[in-house]
C-alpha cells in the first residue's frame, strides 16, 4: 500500500508539474510554507493571526509563502495536491475542518508536513497544533475569583463544543483556586455572531448576581461587554474578561484583562521546530510555556485590582510554565492520554 501511494504521489506531482514549472525564482527560498484558511484573513482575529504568522515566516525565516482561502471542503484535497505539486514543504491548515483531507494528503505526499490547527489526529507528517487556551483561561478564572464581590461569576459561550467547554472548565478551576465557595454560571447562545443574544445571556447572568463575566463567543463578544457596561452605568459593580485576543481596549473601564492566543508566535515556533527536524509524530501543544497563551491584565484598571491578586496570578503563570501546575484540559487529539 505504501509503495502504491508513493507511486501515485510521484505520478500526481509529475502530472501537475506544468502547474509549478517556469515560475520559480532564481534565488531559491529557504523553504516553502503555505497557509489554508476557511475564512478571510481580514477578520482581525483567528485567520488574521495565522496570516501574520505566515508573513513572519517569510520575513524572519526566508520562507517562500502562499495562502489560499478555501470556500468549501471540496477544495481541501485540491489545495493540498496543488501545494505538494508546487514543492511546498510545510502547510498550515488553519482549522479542524482540514484534518481528514490533511491525513489523506499526508499519506499521499510523505515529503510534505501539514500542521492542522485544532486538529484531532496525528501521523508522522500530519501534526495537530493545539492551543492550550485553558492556561490563559485558568489565570482569568483566578482573577475573576479574586475580584468577585457577590461570589458569583458567569461564562457566556458560543456553541457548546469541547474546545469552548474546555476553556470554561479551566476558568472554573481558576475561580475555585482562589475562591472555593464561588458560584459559576454557564450559558451558550448557540452561534458565534449573534451580538444581541450574547448581550441577553450576559444580562441574565448579571441579574442572577454574577459580577464578573468571561466569554468565548468570538464575534458575538461585543454583546457581553455591552451588557457589563450597562450594568455599571446602573451603579452596580461588574467586570468583563476578554478571550482569544487582547480585548482590553473594547470596554477599557470595565475589563479586567484578556486570555489571549499569540498565533503568529505559535506558527513561527512551529516552523522553527520543523526546520530543526523536531516536528512529526506528536501533537504540538502551545500554551503559556511558549508564551503563546497568556492572560493580559488590563493596564487601564490596574489600580482597581488588589496587588496581592496580581502576584498570585503571576506566580500561577510561572508554575504553569514550569509544569508545576496542571490546568484541566479537554483532550480531542485522538489517542492522546491524560498526560498528553
Amino acid at each position, binding site marked *: 500500500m505504501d509503495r502504491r501511494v508513493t507511486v501515485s504521489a510521484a505520478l500526481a506531482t509529475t502530472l501537475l508539474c506544468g502547474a509549478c514549472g517556469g515560475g520559480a525564482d532564481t534565488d531559491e527560498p529557504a523553504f516553502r510554507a503555505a497557509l489554508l484558511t476557511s475564512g*478571510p484573513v481580514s477578520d482581525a482575529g483567528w485567520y488574521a493571526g495565522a496570516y501574520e504568522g505566515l508573513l513572519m515566516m517569510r520575513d524572519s525565516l526566508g520562507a517562500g509563502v502562499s495562502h489560499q*482561502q478555501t*470556500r468549501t471542503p471540496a477544495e481541501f484535497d485540491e489545495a493540498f495536491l*496543488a501545494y505538494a505539486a508546487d514543492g511546498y514543504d510545510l502547510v498550515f491548515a488553519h482549522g479542524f475542518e482540514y*484534518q*481528514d483531507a490533511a491525513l489523506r494528503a499526508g499519506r499521499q505526499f510523505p515529503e510534505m508536513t501539514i500542521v492542522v490547527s485544532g486538529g*484531532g489526529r496525528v501521523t508522522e507528517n500530519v501534526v495537530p497544533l493545539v492551543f492550550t487556551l485553558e492556561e490563559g483561561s485558568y489565570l482569568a478564572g483566578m482573577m475573576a475569583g479574586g475580584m468577585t464581590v457577590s461570589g458569583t461569576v458567569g461564562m457566556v459561550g458560543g456553541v457548546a463544543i469541547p*474546545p469552548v467547554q474546555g476553556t470554561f472548565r479551566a476558568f472554573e478551576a481558576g475561580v475555585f483556586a482562589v475562591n472555593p465557595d464561588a458560584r459559576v454560571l454557564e450559558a451558550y447562545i448557540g452561534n458565534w455572531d449573534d451580538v444581541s443574544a450574547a448581550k441577553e445571556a450576559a444580562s441574565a447572568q448579571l441579574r442572577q448576581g454574577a459580577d464578573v463575566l468571561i466569554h468565548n463567543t468570538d464575534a458575538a463578544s461585543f454583546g457581553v461587554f455591552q451588557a457589563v457596561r450597562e450594568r455599571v452605568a446602573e451603579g452596580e459593580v461588574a467586570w468583563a474578561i476578554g478571550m482569544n485576543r487582547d480585548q482590553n481596549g473594547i470596554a477599557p473601564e470595565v475589563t479586567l484583562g484578556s486570555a489571549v492566543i499569540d498565533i503568529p508566535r505559535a506558527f513561527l515556533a512551529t516552523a522553527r521546530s520543523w526546520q530543526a527536524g523536531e516536528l512529526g509524530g506528536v501533537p504540538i501543544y502551545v500554551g503559556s510555556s511558549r508564551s503563546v497563551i497568556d492572560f493580559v491584565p488590563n493596564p487601564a484598571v490596574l489600580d482597581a485590582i488588589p496587588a496581592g491578586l496580581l502576584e498570585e496570578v503571576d506566580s500561577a503563570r510561572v508554575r504553569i510554565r514550569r509544569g508545576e501546575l496542571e490546568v484541566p484540559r479537554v483532550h480531542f487529539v*485522538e489517542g492522546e492520554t491524560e498526560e498528553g
Partner: protein
Amino acid sequence: MRARPFIAIMGNPWVSGATALALTGLVAAASLWLGGFDPLAAFASLVRGSLGSPGAFLSITLVRAVPLILTGLAVGVAFRAGVWNIGAEGQLYAGAVAAVWAGLHFGTLPAALLVPLVLCASALGGVIWILVPAFLRIRMGVGEVITTILMNFLGIHLAAWMVRGPLQEPRGIFPQTESIPLSAQLPVLFPGTRLHLGFPLAMGLAVLAWGFYRWTVAGFRASAVGASEEVARVAGAMDVNRVLTGTFLASGALAGLAGGVEVAGVTFALYEGLSPGWGYTAIAVALLAGLHPLGIVGAGVLFGALEGGAGAMQRNAGIPSAWVSAVEAMVILSLLAVGVASRSRTAGPPTTANESGGIVAGTGGSDEDPGHA
C-alpha cells in the same frame, strides 16, 4: 420573449463562450491592474492552474466540473419543461446527507453494492427535497420559484444540524461526520489523479438526457410542455401534470446525485458549507449552455476551469480571494450576456409582425407561467 427558444438551443454555445471570455479578459485585467495586481501573472496562473497540465485538468478542472454538470443538468431538465427549479442547492445538500447516511449505515457492504446504494440514496434525498415544491406547484398552483428557494434554506440547515446531531463524528467534537468507508467511495479513474467515477457518470447522464430530448416521445413531451403548457394540453392532448411530475422528480434526483457524488468522490464526509453555491451557479451553467445537455457538460467544464484556476490565482499570484470572486463573477456575467445575446440573434425573426402574438399579448400572455417572466 421566451427564455428557451427550442431551435436556438441547438445553436453553438462555444462561439459565444470564446467571445465572452476574450471580452471579460480585458475587463478583468483592467480591474486587477487598478487593484495593484499583475494581470498577466494572474491570468497565467489561472490558465496554468486549470488547463496547464494533464494533472491540473484532470484533478482540478474536471473534478470541479462534476457537481456543476450534475446540478446544471438538474436545472436544465427542469427549465426545459418550464419548471423553475431554483432549489438545486437544497436538493444537493439533501442528497449529500442521504449519501453519507447510507455510506455510514451500510458501511459493511462490499463496494459493488455500497457505491450504487449511496448514489441511489442521494438521488432519493434530492427527490424528497423537491416533493413539497412539486406538490404545491402541481396540486395547488403555487409557483415553485419561491418554494424551491425556501427549501434551499431548509436543506442547508438540515446538513448543519446533521453534522452537529445525528450524524456527527462519534467523538462529538467536530461539526462534521465521520468519513464514509473506502467501499462507499467512488473509485479514482487514473492513479495519481483525483478524477473519480462521478465524471463519467455525469457525462453518461448528459448523453442520456440529450438522447432523451432528441429521440424519445417522453422527452419531446417535456420540451412541448416547456414551450407552452397550454399548447401541450390543447394541441398535444398531453397530461401536463404527469410531465411536470416527472420533470420535478428527475431534476431533484440529479441535484441530489450531485451532492452524493461530491461526498462519495471528493470530501468523503459531510460538512456544513459543503457547497459554495453550486446549485445557483448551475443556473448560469444551464443558461449558458442553452439548456442543451451536452452544452451543459461544456459549460460545466468551463466553470470548473474558472474556479480551479481561481484557486491557483490565489496561491501563485497572491490575489486575495475577494478579488478572485469578483473576477469570476465578471466572467460569468459576460459569458451569460454574450451567450444569450448570440442566441437571440439566431432565433429568427421576432415574428412576422404581431400576427403571431405580441410580447404582452393578452391572449398569449398566460402560456408563460405567472410570476416567472
